[in-house]
């Protein structure tokens, strides 16, 4: 039996192109909405400052408003982190799946 030919650079190329594909498409979809959400919160911060300056809200009310905005940013960033992990997971699994194809092809039968 001759030794199966597995070229490391081929596997690496296949894995990284599979991972890149997943990362690119997912981030392109997520980024614009997150930016829009963060922009609207920055606008809200300006509004709170204005309401305080106009005397329409007290310092305590301003503080409560700022807490709401701050926590909103937190949920957005957490979502970003979570989607990042899902994306990374998809990238890893799709890279592993690429290896599966290449290894099975080199061996000549479905071992993986």
């Amino acid at each position, binding site marked *: 039996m001759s*030794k*199966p030919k*597995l070229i490391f650079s081929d596997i690496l190329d296949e894995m990284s192109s599979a991972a890149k594909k997943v990362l690119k498409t*997912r981030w392109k979809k*997520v980024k614009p*909405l*997150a930016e829009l*959400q963060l922009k*609207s*919160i920055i606008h*809200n911060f300006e*509004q*709170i400052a204005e*309401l305080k300056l106009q005397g*329409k*809200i007290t310092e*305590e*009310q301003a503080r*409560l*408003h700022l*807490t*709401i*905005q701050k*926590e*909103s940013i*937190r*949920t*957005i960033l*957490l*979502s*970003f*982190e*979570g*989607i990042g*992990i*899902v*994306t*990374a*997971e*998809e990238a*890893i*699994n799709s890279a*592993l*799946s690429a*290896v*599966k194809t290449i*290894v099975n092809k080199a061996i000549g039968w479905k*071992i*993986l």
Partner: protein
Amino acid sequence: MLKFFGSLFILSFFISCSGIRLIQDYDSISDNRINSLQEKTAKFFIRVDRQFAKPDLNYDNFISFYDDSKADINVLLVRNRALYKTSITQQQLESLLIQFNSLELLHKKGFNSKEEIYIIKSAIENSFTAILQFQLSLKKRSNT
């Protein structure tokens, strides 16, 4: 040759199962409950906007909304604490609870302008969008 098949065995361990899991599985019960809480909150803001500067806007008329919403978030938190790798969802829910508590305190003090209501509404809506966006990415993954 032995080395080759050894590496192959390790590789097959990672690939052959169900893939690597770095984060929680999609939970349809949590997703549905978050959606219904979002709907309830949207109705609350419509009502508040309509009743602005009227006696009906009084905090006492909205106590049941605050009780229900906070109970919903707590039920979701307990459920997610029991599920595996749900730290992000848990933190998002804790964040949402802080927002509802602050909203309630502001309501108790009374809203002085409609702008106040709009900035709270937009922040809470952004939070729901972010939470649901994350749930959607989990759902998409579970479908692939």
